């Protein structure tokens, strides 16, 4: 049961990564690309956590959760920096 759910989850998150990638390539404004980068990192986070659930308990699994935490931190900071650059023309005055 859990295997089927994990496969469905992998498919859903991978498909939403692809859709967000198409918006990243197409987006008419710069903020659209920034928003789709934000969506990309959130979905990559979900994919990493799914891979962590699917793996047997051990060192590699907690490493996957730590990678997910790092991606969350760096992605948030980069989204905020990009938005500030777009609105002010400068990240740190």
């Amino acid at each position, binding site marked *: *049961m*859990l295997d*089927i*759910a*994990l496969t*469905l*989850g992998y*498919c*859903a*998150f991978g*498909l*939403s*990564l692809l*859709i*967000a990638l*198409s*918006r990243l390539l197409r987006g*008419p*404004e*710069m*903020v*659209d690309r*920034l*928003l*789709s980068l*934000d*969506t990309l990192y*959130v*979905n990559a*986070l*979900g994919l990493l*956590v*799914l891979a*962590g*659930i699917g793996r047997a*308990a051990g060192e590699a699994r907690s490493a996957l*959760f730590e990678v*997910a*935490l790092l991606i*969350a*931190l760096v992605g*948030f900071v980069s*989204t*905020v920096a990009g*938005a*500030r650059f*777009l*609105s002010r023309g400068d990240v740190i005055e």
Partner: protein
Amino acid sequence: MTLYASLVEWVMSALIIVGGFFSLVGAIGLQRLPDFLSRLHAPTKASTLGVGGVLLAAILEPMRVGAMPVLHVLLLTLFVFISAPVSAQFLASAALRSGAGSALGRKPDEFVEEPASESVPPHRG
């Protein structure tokens, strides 16, 4: 497999499937909604909910073998739920300042509430 373990497994499967569904809804909204300010709310709400479901499943996962739930994944959940509205706020402010076009024929200024008196300039994001 005991009844308890299979119950935990059913709850985890439901959370994973619901999470995947919501993340897919968020991505489709990002692709198909007409202008930026409406595209903004699809991934920031739906994808956050999707990742939140998957993270809840990851918290429940050790209960399958009778262990305590892991709480450092809860930290990740809290961080995602706090940081997503903040980054959405920054993106909306950047869109209002750069004047991202609206497919509904409205200028972004019309989304901002005008103050009552004429002398005060309108507050912009």
